């Protein structure tokens, strides 16, 4: 009774009697970790003064260095969860308790004013929804930077969004009654909070038939790396006598190309020490099996899509669920045909089916889906024909509108703010009409696949997808291998890489076809394309500019640009830059559309990201990029030789007292190679000329990350 009256008078500071129980953690929904099972570091005192709280008591600390509590939680399934923190408010509390949330995208810091009453339920303050990977994660309540008042730690709760909604509903309906049932005195056999009820879902919509691969009409031939080299010798020349790159350059380039960052010093030395004759083959296998292979190339494909997807008016498009899903497909060895089929035919809510991201983010717009689907998956551009017959190739306006008719019944509902809540569904009726024409346009793909009017949305999209990914499609396999070849060899067979039709600038068609056939023969095995290219002599040539601008394409592999994610991952590998995420501003009546906070990776991506379909020559170097590496505080904090800073550089200089050895190590760490003797003396002289080892090495490190080499695929 006392507990109930405390709540009903809205006063949360009624002193509790010693025997009054707290909320029983096992009776709360979701996962709850009480502070008694957490790791307390520093001086924390127990208290039962302010109610309600979880378990026997709560703890508090005045704060200072080394004062924090770690709550360990086992997350069974990767996904999005609502995180709540329990504390008891009061006027002597801190205005800024810091909660560190280890999300799948980096650690996020949330600050809570503990003088204010938690929003509830009860003593719990919702900290927000975050994505997590499966496994053990560590939530920290930190009092380290605390200046005034005490920091309270009581419990951490992890709920699925549905559990949270159900729990909150119940709390809002009758909190006194609920609280009574949650305390230990209540009947322990009755679950206090009802299981999250499933909302009445609308009638399930028809899903596309499960993907079934059809064998090619005539079998295609595989190709070996040696055969690629023979063809290259025939068409380009100079391949067999070109010098192969050494092990250091090989592992650096391969690691960059496959998993999107430079190798660490350990990886480098292991590879160099390996004496196996087939160690390059093994390295290719090891990197293809690395989960970062899928992550890296999911980033690439996500960029391919996102750079041409205009943002909707009131929703921030978040590609991370899509990237996560795509990485799984790539790592799991799913054929590119099946993955593409699933993207084009997807239906449902993006949170449940991230494959629906592509159709959903285009808001089901039939024109955009027509032009982008052919561009992204077939590298064939038809958008010019939306408004008039294509000017430069034989393509009447109808071609475009027949493709648009495949998407005429797609429906996408956009919520405010949260893009994962976009739902892709189907309209029951509707046909596409071309402006100024009376008749309905039949869904028809380049006169190759035709669908009757009146068919359902999913049936149309499944027909289109089946045609796109079929072995007989003239562009599908070529489009994919062209992009891989372009990233690995410095330019595509066709440029721009999303135009393999007549308009593109086409070279080496024989090799292009052979590689496409290989891809079809391997049942669209993604990793196999990388494998066969990476093991060719052609790939393992040294990087240098073409002799003359007029010289034969592929006579040389020039230094390429790293993509945004690759720049961040290289900064992570080189200077151990942390990925910090700012606090998410809450949505409120006043600020209805607060933008999502940017992580360090986002900032780097904003500056260095580019559309992967752009020709290399059109990828600009910008002042924003230069300023980020020159001046940005987060980057500069790592260019610090002060032993107390704990940076990579500081540690390196403590370990290596000898300048020459330190320079060599810095080159290994930052540029993933050994310095030349000239470079050693250059750096050595610089350090010596300053007469200050720390300042000298800070300059050297700064110079390295601000050099062209650091930003190059090399």
């Amino acid at each position, binding site marked *: 009774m006392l507990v109930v009256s405390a709540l009903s008078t809205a006063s949360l500071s009624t002193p509790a009697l010693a025997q009054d129980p707290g909320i029983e953690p096992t009776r709360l929904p979701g996962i709850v970790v009480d502070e008694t099972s957490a790791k307390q570091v520093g001086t924390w005192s127990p208290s039962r003064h302010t109610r309600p709280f979880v378990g026997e008591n709560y703890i508090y600390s005045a704060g200072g260095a080394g004062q924090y509590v770690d709550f360990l939680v086992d997350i069974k399934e990767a996904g999005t969860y609502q995180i709540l923190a329990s504390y008891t408010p009061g006027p002597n509390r801190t205005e800024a308790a810091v909660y560190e949330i280890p999300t799948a995208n980096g650690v996020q810091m949330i600050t809570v004013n503990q003088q204010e009453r938690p929003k509830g339920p009860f003593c719990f303050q919702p900290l927000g929804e975050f994505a997590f990977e499966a496994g053990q994660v560590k939530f920290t309540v930190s009092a380290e930077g605390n200046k005034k008042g005490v920091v309270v730690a009581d419990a951490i709760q992890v709920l699925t969004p549905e559990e949270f909604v159900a729990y909150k509903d119940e709390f809002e309906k009758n909190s006194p009654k609920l609280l009574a049932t949650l305390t230990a005195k209540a009947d322990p056999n009755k679950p206090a909070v009802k299981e999250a009820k499933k909302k009445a879902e609308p009638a399930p919509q028809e899903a596309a038939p499960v993907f079934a691969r059809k064998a090619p009409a005539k079998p295609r031939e595989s190709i070996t790396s040696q055969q690629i080299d023979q063809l290259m010798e025939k068409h380009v020349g100079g391949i067999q006598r070109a010098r192969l790159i050494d092990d250091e350059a090989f592992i650096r380039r391969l690691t960059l190309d496959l998993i999107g960052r430079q190798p660490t010093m350990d990886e480098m030395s292991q590879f160099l020490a390996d004496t196996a004759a087939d160690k390059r083959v093994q390295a290719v296998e090891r990197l293809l099996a690395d989960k970062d292979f899928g992550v890296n190339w999911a980033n690439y494909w996500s960029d391919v899509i996102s750079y041409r997807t*205009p*943002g*909707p*008016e*009131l*929703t*921030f498009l978040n590609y991370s669920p899509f990237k996560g899903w795509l990485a799984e497909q790539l790592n799991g060895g799913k054929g590119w045909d099946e993955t593409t089929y699933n993207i084009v035919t997807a239906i449902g809510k993006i949170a449940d089916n991230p494959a629906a991201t592509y159709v959903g983010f285009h808001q089901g*717009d039939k*024109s*955009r889906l027509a*032009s982008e689907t052919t561009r992204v998956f077939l590298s064939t551009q038809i*958008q*010019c024909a*939306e408004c008039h017959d294509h000017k430069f190739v034989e393509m009447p306006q109808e071609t475009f509108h027949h493709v648009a008719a495949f998407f005429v019944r797609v429906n996408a509902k956009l919520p405010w703010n949260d893009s994962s809540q976009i739902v892709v569904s189907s309209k029951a009726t509707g046909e596409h009409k071309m402006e100024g024409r009376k008749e309905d346009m039949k869904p028809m793909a380049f006169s190759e696949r035709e669908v009757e009017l009146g068919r359902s949305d999913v049936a149309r999209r499944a027909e289109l997808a089946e045609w796109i990914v079929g072995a007989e499609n003239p562009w599908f396999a070529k489009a994919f291998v062209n992009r891989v070849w372009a990233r690995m060899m410095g330019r595509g067979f066709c440029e721009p890489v999303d135009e393999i039709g007549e*308009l593109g*600038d086409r070279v080496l068609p024989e090799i292009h076809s052979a590689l496409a056939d290989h891809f079809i023969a391997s049942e669209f095995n993604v990793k196999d394309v990388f494998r066969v290219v990476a093991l060719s002599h052609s790939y393992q040539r040294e*990087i*240098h*500019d073409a002799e003359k601008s007029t010289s034969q394409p592929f006579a040389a592999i*020039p*230094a390429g640009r790293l993509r945004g994610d690759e720049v961040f991952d290289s900064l992570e590998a080189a200077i151990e830059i942390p990925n910090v995420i700012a606090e998410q501003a809450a949505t409120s009546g*006043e*600020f*209805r*559309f607060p*933008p999502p906070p940017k992580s360090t990776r986002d900032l780097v991506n904003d500056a260095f990201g580019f559309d992967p379909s*752009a020709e290399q020559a*059109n990828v*600009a*170097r*910008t*002042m*924003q*990029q*230069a*300023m*980020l590496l*020159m*001046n*940005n*505080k987060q980057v*500069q904090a790592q260019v610090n030789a002060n032993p107390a800073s704990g940076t990579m550089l500081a540690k390196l200089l403590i370990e290596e007292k000898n300048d020459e050895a330190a320079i060599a190590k810095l080159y290994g760490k930052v540029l993933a190679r050994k310095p*030349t003797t*000239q*470079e050693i003396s*250059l750096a050595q002289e*610089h350090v010596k000329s300053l007469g200050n080892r720390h*300042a000298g090495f800070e*300059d*050297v490190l*700064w*110079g*390295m990350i*601000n*050099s*062209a*080499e650091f*930003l*190059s695929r*090399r």
Partner: protein
Amino acid sequence: MLRSFISATTNGDGLTGRRGFLKSLGVAAGAGTMTLSWRDMLLARAKELQKSGKRMILLWMDGGPSQYDTFNPKPGSEYQGPSQAIHTNVPGIDIAEHWPHTAKVFDKIALIRSMVSDEKDHFRAIKLVRSGYPIKPTIAYPTWGSVVARDRWDPGFDLPAFVRIGKPRIKTRDINSGVLGPRYESFKIDEPGKLPEDVHPSVSADVLQRRLALAAKFDEQFAARGSRKAAIEQREIYDRTSRFVLSPLLDAFNLDKEPEKLRDAYGRNAFGQGCLLARRLVETGVSFIEVINGGTNNDQGWDTHKRGFKENPILAGETDSGYATLLTDLADRGMLENTLVVWMGEFCRTPKYEDEAGGRNHYSEGWLVGMSGGGVKMGQAIGATDKDNVKVVDRPISVPDLFCTFCQILGMDPRSEYFTDQDQPLKLVEGGEVIKELF
């Protein structure tokens, strides 16, 4: 063939480079050049640039301002609401009472009262009114500032050609350089008087120069190993960036240099100080400046759906001093002739208001544009609406008309074409005619 033809066309900037300028300055100043400091040279250069081309300042009223509470009140109409009309210093032009300062400088404004468009949705209207092109999902038309920046691009100038001051009230409802790419993107100042963090070197200029010299040596090594092209590109952008972050012209962003009295006159709020910053930037040679006025009422801006009667006077009050003082300040300095100042939002508000509080919805007939300077005939009102502001009854003007007029003033040919980053040809403006009354 098609491709090489295109790249040849896009490279035609036709502007004097840094060296060219210094040479011409040397000829003009003769032996006196020797005594000029670096800063003097840069300032002289900025002055030189000012002569060569007109600048544009866009005062963007984010959210769509009410015509009744700004420059087209309709006393006696059942739709007017509580705002009274006052006379301006131009006989025959009355405006809403919340603009006392602007009323005194109306001889420096040509007011268009008959803008008409089809777009009543913020997102679509913003894209239209800031680019001149109706929204098209498959092409990202650039905002006008980027188009002007491309026209005025000068690699020898330390500062960016296009600066944006203030943030759009809702981040996703924005328009950037689109198909023109990052080079012509605006340089963004969120808060007037404060440069973005990354502009400030974390070390002294000497240390930065020392480090840049070392990085250049590293790049020489990279070039020597065969990657000369990447090394040269890198050095070019670092030269440009280091010139920018160390440039004495960055002083233009520092409002502390201005007399307190003038700062007060501009209004001590984000918009007023933004206008002052815009003037400083024009003075320094920046080609296009956008000052976003989203008001101080959270992310609502001029989008007053609920409490227009109360909020529009507040918004007007936050805008009046900045607008009026900018015009007089530019005129006093003899800069108005070479600076086009445009006041506008994406549309106006419905005649009918919702309830006692005066909320109005979106309306795109009879919205307003104020134009000053750049040689236009000021102190006139062009076009008219009926007694209730329901219909445009005289001289309807379209968005392409407006953009053709911008071109006319800025000395650009509206029908000239450029190639997008996807090699599509695009005209500066499609359709429309110059508004003759302005000249």
